[in-house]
């Protein structure tokens, strides 16, 4: 009997994860293992994959996905979803390119503020006007996408004399690209908010059981607003970065980040139903997505075929990383 007991106990990733507490290591370890596996396959497939130049390309895309993904994760954790991240990214990136030429460094805080405000608007639509976040953010996303087109119907560039303002993203420190430091900083910020602040913790409670949270006196509206503010901020940061590293951008840039942002969150092991997951999950989710997308280009997979491989990989990786034992009903 006892032998049997231990055998069964070792089996379920979910229960083992639950026993070890909040970090949920086993779920995460699948994501880490998957990352290494995918990386290994591509390295063997083409020697160029592992070169310094290519790695910096991967990191750069991964950090972009991380920024928008961390925000998306907050919206998902609280039990919602944020489809406006694409519109926000587009709007922020083109406006940033134009405004940074005029006001210089002040453009950074200004557009972070824009992200906060858009997130707050999304939150208000959900909590005050009571429109489901899926619809509300679909709407605001569309509005900001069109604003981006109005602001800059064609791709815009930062003229060379003004490039100095973008050194924050393009410089290096101790031989390591600043992008990595920025990604790390934002990651730590989101991690700390979710792990060490009461309002961050409330995001988990509300996402896990909203009625119980309400009855326990948690301010539901404030918690949800905050989660969407975090989401808007992440999208705005990604918008700033995408312009900064390319010294310009086109108004469509954000639309290609909506689904990857959700994929990065879910592939990392955060449940779409809310309440479980975390910053570490999204970090690995973003890395996996980035390695995949880049690796397929390097190895020379047909452009059209890449989408289906990506689709399959999302399904496979969610099958591995998603902790089903936490969600009684899979929707």
């Amino acid at each position, binding site marked *: *009997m006892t032998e*049997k*007991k231990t055998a*069964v*106990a070792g*089996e*379920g990733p979910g*229960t*083992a994860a*639950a*026993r*070890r*507490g*909040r970090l949920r290591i086993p779920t995460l370890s699948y994501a880490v293992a998957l990352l290494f596996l995918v990386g290994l396959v591509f390295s063997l497939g083409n020697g160029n994959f592992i070169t310094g130049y290519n790695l910096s390309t991967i990191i750069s895309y991964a950090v972009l996905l991380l920024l928008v993904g961390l925000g998306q994760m907050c919206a998902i954790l609280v039990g919602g979803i944020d489809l406006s991240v694409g519109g926000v990214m587009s709007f922020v990136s083109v406006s940033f390119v134009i405004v940074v030429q005029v006001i210089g460094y002040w453009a950074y805080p200004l557009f972070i503020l824009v992200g906060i405000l858009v997130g707050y608007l999304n939150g208000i639509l959900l909590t005050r006007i009571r429109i489901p976040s899926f619809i509300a953010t679909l709407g605001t996303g569309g509005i900001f996408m069109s604003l981006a087109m109005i602001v800059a119907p064609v791709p815009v560039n930062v003229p060379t004399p003004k490039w100095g303002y973008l050194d924050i993203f393009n410089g290096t420190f101790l031989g390591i690209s600043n992008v990595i430091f920025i990604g790390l900083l934002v990651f730590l910020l989101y991690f*700390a908010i979710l*792990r*060490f*602040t*009461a309002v961050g*913790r*409330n995001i*988990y*409670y509300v996402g*896990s*059981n909203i*009625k*119980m*949270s*309400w*009855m*326990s*006196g*948690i*301010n539901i509206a404030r918690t949800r607003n905050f989660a969407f503010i975090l989401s808007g901020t992440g999208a705005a940061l990604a918008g700033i970065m995408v312009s900064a590293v390319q010294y310009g951008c086109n108004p469509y840039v954000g639309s290609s980040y909506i689904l990857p942002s959700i994929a990065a969150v879910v592939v990392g092991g955060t449940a779409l139903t809310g*309440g*479980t997951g975390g910053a570490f999950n999204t970090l690995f989710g973003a890395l996996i997505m980035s390695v995949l997308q880049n690796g397929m280009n390097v190895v020379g997979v047909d452009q059209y075929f890449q989408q289906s491989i990506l689709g399959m990989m999302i399904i496979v990786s969610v099958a591995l990383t998603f902790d089903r*034992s*936490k*969600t*009684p009903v899979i929707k």
Partner: protein
Amino acid sequence: MNDIGSSTNSEVTLALTGVSKVFPGVVALDKVDFSLHSHEIVGLVGENGAGKSTLMKIMIGVSQPDEGTISRDGILISPKDPSDAIRHGIGMVFQEGTLVPNLSIMRNLFLCHEPGFQKLGFLSRRAMREAASRLMEEVKVSADVETSISDVSPAERQMVEIARLLWLSRLYGQKHPVLILDEPTTVLNDGERTILFDILRNIKKEASVILISHRLQEIVENTDRIVVLKDGKNVTELPSANARISEIEQLMVGHTFSADRYREDEQTPAGAEEVLRVENLGRRGAFEPISFVIRKGEIVSLVGLVGSGKEEVCRCINGLENADTGAVFLKGKKLLMGSPNGAVRAGVGHIPIDRRNDGLALGMSVAENVNLLVMNRLKVWGFVSPPRERKNAKVWVEECRIKTPSLGTMCANLSGGNQQKTVIAKWLSSKVSLLILDHPTRGVDVGAKEEIFRLIRKLAREGIAMLIMSDTLEEDIGLSNRMLIMKDGRFVKEMACPPGKKPGPRDIIDAIV
């Protein structure tokens, strides 16, 4: 075993032999044997976590046994899922109910099996109506079969479920259907309960019934045989005819019960300080203005039938509903009405009746649930400190004797009694001054009940004022210092319950009805 009960001359229709089931960290069933004769009602009793639900789940194919066999009329079967089990004539009426609320009785009865009523490729509404009416007659439901399920009473819903299972068994040609009823009476009033058992006795002519209930009285009165499980093992079985409740309780818990189960001798008199003052609180359509006071360390019981307005009074005090008139004061400070947040901040705790849905984040750990209300107190330099979190959770898990493999265990994996203790621990750690307990022992086994009573007494000693609504009158009388009796939305009578001079249930029943 054959000579037990009234079912001597009938054959075994369902037999589970040497069934074991292991979950991570727990042996839920350890070589359990269970047999059911045709035309028999068997009561299955045991504490929460004794293995009753696991045994049921194995019978209806929700989980599969690790060892052991299931045989039906002598033939080995292994149900894969509930729809497979019903093909073998085994069906279950769940605690929560499994009907689709927005469909009619008729639609629910034949759900997923409508093709039998097809004529020329179309469903014959008339044939369905006729069959449904006949079935409803059998279970004595008078409502029209086109009534939507959301409009019928909980009792009638249960009857519909029973009728559905009977009909399915016939559809699959089963001669001896087996019906499993899990706590069928918790949602029923006394009259409905009597009707349910009448129907079950009637159904016995055709089917066998397994009855799970925490109300031992009804088990003894309505079954032929009682099977007792404890810690996943068979303890014993005995004929119901000469079973005594105290004897069964003892078998379930494994030790004798103190005569003073509500710990009356530990009852402390109310303090002088006023904790809760309710002034002219009223809500149109629910209850008329009511005023009362609860003092420090006092346990006040709110007594009344369903519809007496007692639930609504509590919901107005803890802010879940907004009152039309009056005010609530906690320690002299006026509460913000209609806001759970305001009530919680002021120090009103609330143990809800539905702990799974309203009391816990089931997908989160015991520690996270216990710490929910006190995050702000676990901060160091403005940030929540993990060591403090662990410390606080550990203190309250021990204080409330929550049986859990670890602090990180998901609440969904705890038994009902331990989930309830987790909810209590959550509120206690936040240092409430008033605790509203909405049926704190509902669906909790005897052993866990005792622990909850112990906790309640301890809280009173520590000066927490409590407002209780209980499952039984006996519990109300036993626990409280004072009872407030409500009837039809009006406050009718107040009764003191000092230790040693408690009124009897009869003194109160007249006032309630």
